[in-house]
């Protein structure tokens, strides 16, 4: 694909289809690394994962390995995990606490701030051979929202606040419903031989699959009882800047899937009244209902089930999934454990729901090996005429959570970014109510 490719050709929101080649072609994937992952705000870590000075966590932005590190002043720096000398990673641990990183190859050391420090056998260099400030690993812009640390390598990207936009209206009911949140120790990682977008688009709006595909998992968690019939009234898709939240308003399905009666009672008696006081009745009804969420480009979570995850791209045909359990800091410790166990029972590689998802996404991806198969389009037309204005809900709103709307808007945002030469080319496709935008 040349830079002149119009990526909107791969999606059609009038007819409701997506071109399968975006899940397969190497050239498109390379463009994603450049246009999506080198530009977007991406999740690095939760504050609670690196609470103390010199704590660090290693992850990836696209396929660029990075270290997120807590500084002595409490701020976080994010920098490339690659030695500027010959390129090797200079940190091979997932996480830990250290005052410096030392590259195994020649012994170049880097401070917790990512700056190049002492070199092993430094006397072999003459004065003037190296400017250490200049030859330090590339630093990202870092910002956070309600405990979630994000970074981008694009100096011209909008602020995180603008990037999230009115989606914060929804995020607050998850990340600020009763004070600060925290992640349970862990961060289980797994490979799925699927295109990264299949994970994201599933969580961004695919309530539909749950009824059929997860029937067995739900029955396992709910004493043999499956989902009721699909309810299309009083449920919605909401899309903001390519982020998407699909949700019901009946209150408890995702809380029940976690499998803990005590958690259901806590949500009913403690959290919902607080959400109602703070954010009003509608959001207290949304929290805990059948719902799923993705933040563009590759972050997802399930309010009520409490899984939080990132889908790291590993080529067009493989992703690395990292999963976390999110709880409120002030919950009783034993309830945190109960929620964590329920989250693990449902959404880890052995989870009774997650085990079915990977099967689908691998199949979605692998079939495109067939030349004729990948020239066929995929249908994304469910609920295509159901867009509404809602007096309370911000974003682009569709009626009925069984809908492809959030997926269509995700791929629209994807194409917008894939095409853009600059941020001026990226349209804001919704009318902000709560956020001031620069454009």
């Amino acid at each position, binding site marked *: 694909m040349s830079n002149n490719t119009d990526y909107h050709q791969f999606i059609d929101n009038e007819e409701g289809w997506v071109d399968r080649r975006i899940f397969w072609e190497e050239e498109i994937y390379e463009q994603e690394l450049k246009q999506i992952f080198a530009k977007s705000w991406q999740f690095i870590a939760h504050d609670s994962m690196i609470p103390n000075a010199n704590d660090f966590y290693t992850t990836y932005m696209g396929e660029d390995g990075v270290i997120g590190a807590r500084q002595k002043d409490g701020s976080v720096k994010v920098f490339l995990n690659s030695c500027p000398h010959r390129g090797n990673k200079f940190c091979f641990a*997932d996480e830990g606490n*250290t005052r410096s990183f030392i590259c195994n190859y020649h012994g170049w050391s880097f401070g917790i701030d990512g700056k190049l420090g002492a070199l092993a056998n430094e006397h072999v260099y003459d004065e003037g051979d190296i400017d250490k400030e200049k030859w330090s690993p590339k630093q990202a812009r870092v910002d956070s929202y309600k405990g979630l640390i994000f970074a981008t390598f694009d100096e011209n990207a909008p602020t995180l606040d603008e990037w999230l936009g009115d989606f914060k209206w929804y995020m607050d009911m998850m990340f600020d419903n009763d004070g600060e949140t925290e992640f349970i120790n*862990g*961060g289980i990682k797994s490979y799925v031989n699927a295109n990264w977008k299949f994970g994201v688009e599933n969580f961004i709006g695919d309530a539909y699959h749950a009824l059929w595909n997860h*029937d067995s998992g739900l*029955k396992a968690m709910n004493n043999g009882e499956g989902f009721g019939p699909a309810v299309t009234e009083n449920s919605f898709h909401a899309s903001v800047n390519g982020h998407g939240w699909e949700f019901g308003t009946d209150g408890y399905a995702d809380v029940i899937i976690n499998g803990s009666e005590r958690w259901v009672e806590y949500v009913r008696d403690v959290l919902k009244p607080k959400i109602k006081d703070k954010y009003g009745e509608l959001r207290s009804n949304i929290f805990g209902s059948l719902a799923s969420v993705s933040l563009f480009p590759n972050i997802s979570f399930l309010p009520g089930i409490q899984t939080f995850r990132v889908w790291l791209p590993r080529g067009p045909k493989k992703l690395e999934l990292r999963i976390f359990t999110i709880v409120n800091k002030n919950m009783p410790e034993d309830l945190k454990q109960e929620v964590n166990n329920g989250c693990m029972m449902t959404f880890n*590689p052995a989870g009774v729901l*997650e085990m*079915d998802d990977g*099967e689908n996404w691998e199949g979605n991806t692998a079939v495109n090996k067939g030349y004729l198969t990948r020239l066929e389009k995929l249908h994304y037309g469910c609920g295509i005429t159901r867009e509404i204005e809602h007096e309370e809900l911000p974003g682009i709103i569709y009626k009925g959570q069984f809908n492809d709307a959030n997926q269509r808007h995700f791929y629209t945002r994807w194409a917008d970014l894939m095409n853009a030469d600059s941020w001026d080319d990226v349209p804001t496709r919704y009318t902000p109510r709560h956020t001031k935008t620069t454009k």
Partner: protein
Amino acid sequence: MTNLSEKPAVPASMELTFEVEQFLYKEARLLDTEEFHIWLGLLTEDIHYWMPYRYQRYRKNHVEPTVNDQSYYNDNMHNLERRVLRNDTGTCWSEDPATRSSHVISNIEVEHTDNPNEYRVYSLTTVNRNMNEDEEHLMVGHRTDILRRVDGQLKLAKRKIILDQNIFMNKSLNVFL
């Protein structure tokens, strides 16, 4: 319940070792043949079936995983029954056609514990999982079990599995290890 970290260790007799080996081989066969209800019958009511996440940290930062962390499994009997129930629903699409698995159990060591009815058993489980057309996945786990003699029969009371992998190398852990 015997503490898994207690230090040794009176080795078991050949007779007891043989009995334990046969128990583990039978268990492996039941898992391979998906006889999960019979398998549940080999477990004590207070079973703790635990497979923690294995952290990759520098040696100086080493921590042992705890049951309060994320774990692949951290199951009591109720949770294990839930997993078996999933397979029984008739709507477990990803298990139809069935997954094919082979459990190879080796490196078995049996020790007495302070409790005369409980034995500490170390073993290595090597599981080959094959599914769909050509998907093959090898998992190797270090198991530390507590077997308890209940009414004359050996039962599994506690299992801790430490997998070699850091990134779990496949989409699902759909077989017990």
